[in-house]
Structure formats: structure tokens, C-alpha cells
């Protein structure tokens, strides 16, 4: 950062002020979130097409998902959203301890989410419900079960990849927060990562009723 502003190590030289840099970053992350909505919209449309064509199949297949597991994962993600938003507050107020604590809880919740997802996936594999062509039919399975689960695996899988990416981002943020990089002047990375994390939460908010709560 030798070419940056001498009194502000994290202010890039092509920005006039921290506010200038923050606004540019904020616009960037919102444009990215816009593309994320479009990215997932294809999957929601695929879901709508298949569900409207096979309503009974979705009804029967949804019974193979554990509502309790899905609800717990929803709560885990909601808690992580709270701590992500709280982390932003702490960074804005210069509360380094609070920032570290909230980032750590967010990261722990992301890990917890993936652990629960792992148990759900392995349980499905145990029943022969593998993704796509690896699906193994059984007399206990309703008709076209694999169609529902192909959609389930792609939607929750892509969401899971986003959670994994978030875990990487929050690990990086935690390291920087411990180093003391952030404060009221410079908290853009915390704010932008929290926004990303919230959109991951929002997608799960829709996935949970669409996949688990078909009655």
C-alpha cells in the first residue's frame, strides 16, 4: 500500500476519501447482488415449471425432507444474519471486541448450517436418493421422486456453495478484524460481506417453504 494515502493504509490512491471508496464498493456489491437474484431466478423458474406440472410428485417427495432440520437451519441462518448486521454496527462504532465476537458467531453459524446440510444429504444418500442419474429407485419412493430431488440438490447445492464462499469471506474478515484493520472510517469489507450474507439468508428464506413445507 505504499502508493496509498500515507495516513490511511486502506484508502486506495484512486479514491479521494474513505466515503468515496465506501460508496464505490457499496455500488459494486449491490450490482453483484442484483446478478445473484438473476442467477437464482433460473432455478426458481425451473422449480415452478416442474411443480406446476407434477404437484402430487412434489407433495409426496417433500415428505422425504425433515422439516425440523430445515427449520433449525433457517434459525441458524437468521441468527447469523443478526450477527452479521451486528458486526457492521460494531465496526461502525469502533468496537473491535464486539466485531470479532459477531464475526466469529456468524462463521460458526455458517459451519453449523453446513454440518446440518451434511447430515441431511447423507441421510438421503442412505435412502438411495442420489443426485441426478445416480438415483436408485426403491418401492418406498413415490413416482418421479428423482425429479424433485434433482431440483432440491441443485437449489440447496448452489445455496450451499454460497454458504461455503461466505465461510471463506468471514474467515478472512475475522483475521483482519483481529489484526485491527477496521473502524468507523474503514468498514467497507464488513458491510459488503454482510450484504452478501443477507442475500444468502434471503434465498434460504424462500427455499425452506418451497422445499420443506409442501403439504
Amino acid at each position: 500500500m505504499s502508493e496509498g494515502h500515507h495516513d490511511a493504509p486502506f484508502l486506495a490512491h484512486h479514491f479521494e476519501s474513505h466515503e468515496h471508496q465506501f460508496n464505490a464498493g457499496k455500488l459494486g456489491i449491490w450490482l453483484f447482488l442484483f446478478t445473484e437474484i438473476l442467477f437464482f431466478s433460473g432455478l426458481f423458474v425451473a422449480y415452478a415449471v416442474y411443480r406446476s406440472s407434477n404437484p402430487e410428485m412434489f407433495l409426496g417427495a417433500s415428505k422425504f425432507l425433515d422439516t425440523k432440520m430445515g427449520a433449525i437451519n433457517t434459525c441458524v441462518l437468521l441468527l447469523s444474519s443478526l450477527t452479521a448486521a451486528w458486526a457492521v454496527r460494531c465496526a461502525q462504532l469502533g468496537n473491535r471486541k464486539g466485531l470479532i465476537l459477531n464475526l466469529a458467531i456468524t462463521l460458526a453459524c455458517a459451519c453449523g448450517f453446513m454440518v446440518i446440510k451434511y447430515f441431511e444429504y447423507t441421510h438421503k444418500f442412505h435412502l438411495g436418493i442420489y443426485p441426478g442419474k445416480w438415483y436408485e429407485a426403491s418401492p418406498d419412493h413415490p413416482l418421479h421422486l428423482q425429479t424433485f430431488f434433482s431440483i432440491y440438490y441443485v437449489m440447496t447445492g448452489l445455496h450451499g456453495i454460497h454458504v461455503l464462499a461466505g465461510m471463506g469471506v468471514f474467515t478472512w474478515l475475522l483475521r483482519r478484524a483481529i489484526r485491527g484493520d477496521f473502524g468507523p472510517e474503514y468498514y467497507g469489507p464488513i458491510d459488503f460481506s454482510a450484504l452478501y450474507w443477507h442475500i444468502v439468508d434471503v434465498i434460504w428464506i424462500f427455499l425452506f417453504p418451497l422445499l420443506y413445507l409442501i403439504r
Partner: protein
Amino acid sequence: MSHDSHSHGDHKPHALPIPILVGTWLALMALTGLTVWVADQHLGKIDFVISMAIATVKATLVALIFMHLLWDKGFHSILVVGGVLLLGLFMAVTMFDREHYQDSMDQYAVDHQLNRRYPVIEHTDEGHGGGEEHAPAPEGEAPAGH
């Protein structure tokens, strides 16, 4: 850019008060409980509408408060609303198209005998109840003419 506040100390971030953060979270948890409870009331078709309405309220809470849109630049809200509108357009056009082909889909199901219990026959090697019913039906048995 905004004003002429070039000195670094002038930028005062808007920090969300803790009661608002925790209150939003509690509302989200309550709505999660509500949607699970409603799903078990066996309300029939309206169930889908209710669960989507609750999910939309939850997503709106997250976007407006956690994601700060309520106090943020309007352009960021335009991006979100624009994205959702495009999703709606994508969904609507595709669903209209799908409705249009419903008859040919039904006919395809009849022609190809898609009412077999196990459509994927290659993977059922355990031999539940004999192999005959898993074999594809001979061409001659198709009810509809070609």
C-alpha cells in the same frame, strides 16, 4: 460525489440500534415458527400462497433493515426491485409458455406410458417384485395410434 467533506473524520456511519437489530431477528424467528405452524394446519391450496407471503415479508424485513435499504441510497433499492421484477417477468413468460404446452405434455405422457411406477429402470437391480413390470412396454401396447 456528495458535499465537500474531504476531511476523513466527517463521514459518520449510520449504526443500527441494538433494539432494532434484535427486534427484527425476533420477528424473523416468529415468522419462521408461523410458517411451520401454518404448514401443519392442512389448509389446502391456499397454503402455498400463505407460505410465500410469509417468506416475502421475511425477505423484506432482511432487505429493509439488516441490509439497510431503508436508510440507503434509492438506487440500491431500484436494483433489488429491478432484479425481482426481472425474476417475475422470467417466471411469468415461462409459465404462460408451459401452460400453452399442457395438452402436448399430457399426450406425451400417454404415448410414452409415463404412468409406470418406476420410470428409471436401469437402477432397480434389487429385484423388488419381479422384473417384468420394470421392463419398458412393447410398442404394440401403446393405447393411442401413432
